[in-house]
């Protein structure tokens, strides 16, 4: 009776109470997963029912075919996007740019190029950070070519591109995209390294080399914080790209419903040898995130465009962009920028020809 309430000690972290919360969290996650799957699995019948049942549109008409495509693909891609962005958001809490730099700093060129390209996929990266990241890598002695492998892979192969490729093209094309994207990043970075372009960095960048690097206190995150990071990623990324997904699929749906099959065979098909370089030349200055361009390309593919040409176009649009090269101009001299764009564009063109020959 004499014990005052204030003495009650707050439960320590590992108490049964927090165990119960973990258990509850697991059940919640499972329920959410089941509900997600139930909705996801029924999207196709729902889109069909809405188009032909609820709206009484005639089968086989341009409009109904376009609408059914749109009603099915938009929720499908958005649902996939939420799940993958959440997962990638959690994975990325394990790969900070600082840690990636520490891994790459001691590596020789060839091994470094491969590692850098792979780390480019999982390290959080936004093109607004491209310059500080570039400088940070150079400063701690990561070779120039290795740095480029990272800079090429990071925007080209990202979770948004993968979701859209998997959702709209299937596993095979998504896997091909990853493998070839990595190859382009590795080989282009390696080539730039071989060309010994260091003197084409802005002079003040070279002065940074070997300079001391301040270290950041490692974030020690618990799982709660990692899940939180995943949710933040969903809010930020899906909140930003959903409109491009909708617009991209709308254009794709239009092409899907209205452009006759094989209309593009002559223009973007295999027979037209010039279509691959043309696709790359058109794609490089264009800038769109994957969310906007992939649905359009998917629709083009259905109308007779060749796979290699389509892949090359997508890689050029997503991987190389005018805004990014303008940002990089702060640290690279024009000649190095030209080499960077030229080498990557050549790599992409080769990918295009390779897949046109194989499929």
């Amino acid at each position, binding site marked *: 009776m004499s014990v005052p309430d204030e003495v009650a000690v707050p439960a320590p972290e590992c108490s049964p109470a927090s165990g119960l919360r973990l258990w509850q969290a697991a059940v919640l996650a499972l329920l959410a997963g089941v509900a997600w799957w139930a909705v996801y699995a029924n999207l196709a019948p729902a889109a069909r029912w809405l188009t032909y049942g609820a709206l009484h549109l005639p089968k086989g008409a341009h409009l109904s075919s376009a609408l059914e495509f749109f009603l099915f693909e938009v929720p499908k891609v958005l649902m996939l996007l939420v799940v993958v962005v959440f997962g990638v958001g959690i994975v990325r809490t394990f790969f900070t*740019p600082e840690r990636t*730099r520490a891994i790459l700093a001691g590596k020789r060129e060839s091994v470094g190029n491969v590692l850098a390209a792979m780390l480019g996929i999982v390290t959080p990266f936004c093109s*607004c950070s491209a310059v*500080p990241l570039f400088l940070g890598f150079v400063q701690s002695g990561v070779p120039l070519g290795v740095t480029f492998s990272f800079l090429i892979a990071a925007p080209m192969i990202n979770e948004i591109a993968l979701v859209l490729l998997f959702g709209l093209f299937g596993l095979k094309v998504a896997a091909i995209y990853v493998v070839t994207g990595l190859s382009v990043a590795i080989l282009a970075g390696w080539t730039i390294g071989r060309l010994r372009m260091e003197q084409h960095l802005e002079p003040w960048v070279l002065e*940074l080399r070997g300079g001391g690097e*301040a270290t950041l*206190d490692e974030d020690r995150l618990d799982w709660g914080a990692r899940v939180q990071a995943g949710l933040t990623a969903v809010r930020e990324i899906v909140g930003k790209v959903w409109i491009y997904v909708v617009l991209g699929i709308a254009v794709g749906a239009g092409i899907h419903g209205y452009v006759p099959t094989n209309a593009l065979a002559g223009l973007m098909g295999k027979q037209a040898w010039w279509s691959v370089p043309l696709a790359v030349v058109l794609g490089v200055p264009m800038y769109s995130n994957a969310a906007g361009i992939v649905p359009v390309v998917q629709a083009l593919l259905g109308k007779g465009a060749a796979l290699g040409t389509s892949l090359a176009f997508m890689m050029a649009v997503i991987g190389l962009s005018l805004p990014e090269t303008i940002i990089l101009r*702060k640290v690279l001299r024009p000649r190095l920028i030209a080499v960077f764009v030229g080498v990557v564009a050549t790599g992409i063109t080769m990918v295009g020809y390779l897949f046109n020959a194989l499929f």
Partner: protein
Amino acid sequence: MDIQILGTGCAKCKTLYANAEAAVKELGLDATLTKVEDLREIIKLGVMTTPALAVNGKVKVAGKVATVADIKKLLA
């Protein structure tokens, strides 16, 4: 106390600056807030991802917009 907000002037950097300002005010601290927008200065502090926040020359947050609550925890 010397608080620096590092970033080349993107929207996120402005948000971080505002959050830091609010945190200082709520805690009633005697701190000077400065923006560091020069890339060279940012790199010298070892930051690769902006926006970042440094307290007395030591980087505390990099690559994300810390909330007012987060910053208050850092400064307290």
